[in-house]
């Protein structure tokens, strides 16, 4: 699953993710992180046999976990399949299909918004 982890200011300097990895059998990938002394948020993909217990642990530790279903969505009516976004994606989540349709792969998206900012027809929305 992917989730936003919200850190309050008092949690900003706690090594919660280190503890998570030490104590639970989880696979994780930090997709985005923006945390400073005022707190902040982290977009994380977390899987593995003990993912549920791990999430319960970090919630108990004081981090607000907000699972997300989608990171990115392309409006099929607005997209003209130009491909301006394709080479901008840092994780190759946007591809051109065999029939030249531009496909945005939600599973691989890290929500950096470079595509949505640069889309000439505003067809790509990154969900906050």
């Amino acid at each position, binding site marked *: 699953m992917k989730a936003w982890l919200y850190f309050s200011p008092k949690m900003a300097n706690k090594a919660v993710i280190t503890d998570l990895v030490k104590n639970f059998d989880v696979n994780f990938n930090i997709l985005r992180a923006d945390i400073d002394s005022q707190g902040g948020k982290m977009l994380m993909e977390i899987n593995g046999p003990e993912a549920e217990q791990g999430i319960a642990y970090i919630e108990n530790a004081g981090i607000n976990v907000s699972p997300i279903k989608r990171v990115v969505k392309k409006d099929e009516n607005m997209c*003209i399949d*130009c*491909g*301006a976004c*394709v*080479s901008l994606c840092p994780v190759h989540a946007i591809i051109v299909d065999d029939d030249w*349709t531009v496909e945005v792969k939600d599973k691989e998206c890290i929500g950096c918004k470079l595509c949505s900012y640069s889309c000439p*027809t505003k067809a790509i929305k990154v969900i906050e």
Partner: protein
Amino acid sequence: MKTIEEINQRIKDGDAVVVTATEMTQIVRENGAEKAAEDIDVVTTGTFGAMCSSGAFLNFGHTDPPIKMTKTFLNGVESYSGLAAVDTYIGATQPSRNPDVGIEYGGAHVIEDLINGKDVELVADSYGTDCYPLTEVKTQVNLENLNDAVMINPRNSYQNYAAAVNSTDEPIYTYMGTLLPNMGNVSFSSAGGLSPLLNDPYFQTIGLGTKIFLCGAEGYVIGEGTQHSTEVKRENGVPVDGAGTMMLKGDMKQMDHEFIRGATMPKYGSTLFVGVGVPIPVLNSDIAKRTAIADEDITCRVTDYGVARRSKPTILETNYQELRSGSIEINGVEVETSPLSSYKKAVKIAKELQSWIENGKFLLTSPVNLLAHEGYSPNPLKLGGKLLL
């Protein structure tokens, strides 16, 4: 050798053989140009790209009492009023006068909204004259109640166009889209082997009066586009850089929203994605050979937009097969490419035009004057004072 009249008779009889430029490449490879010229009557082309030099003449009809509009705004976007009382020209790149909106909604979006059947707010004022006493008007217009909505695009469908990279340390935002720093991506625009003017590179068939597909409607070529150039170096018979252009005309009332779109290039401005398809009559084997041009035979220069000068340095030369593969190699590094024009729509346009002709509802025209194939080379504009840039 065939004539356009003979091809038109075959179209009327339902006997014309019409193929897309992509199909023609394969046909000539297999059968040769002589045989292809005998077998094929028409080759259709297509492109769907951002074409800033586009716009439309609109006529609103007269109010009572009448007004001679001198400042005109459509959904907050100014259109040119230095014409007769209720005529205007809305240009694609004009931004909104509202600074909070700016380039996010420009003339291109007004044109798209009109073609999409939406109501558009018209605000105009005037100094008032004896014959046109009204000094202000505020109302709604739409495509149906406009007397005329004629798209006239001064320069469309460039014959080839250089691809763009950025050598600087910061991203830059251009009419070629977002260019990542340190040559982090490549942006290219032409539809390559499917592009209209690359399939008739010496303008043997296209000229003033050529009937075309324009944004889902029948339109016409009305001459060379502005900045038309014939003196660009050629390889395999086609220019290796931006060269010929077309001026186009079409009736917005007949257009289809699928083949036109207002757009904004971030930090650059609004622009209009225009769908253009040109039919090329295969009158002889030389024309057949030219329409067989393939992506891999069309050279494309990759230029550095990090150098903000008129002449941008060429980093390397590639071709459209490589560009369309998804990445090209620059200085030993694989760099991803982005097409800026929609190849999917370009293919759709070529196929749509093909079906129009096959179904007998689109006949070819004989141009009154072919596009110039020599003697055109745009002049630079000299600055009178000190160069500020």
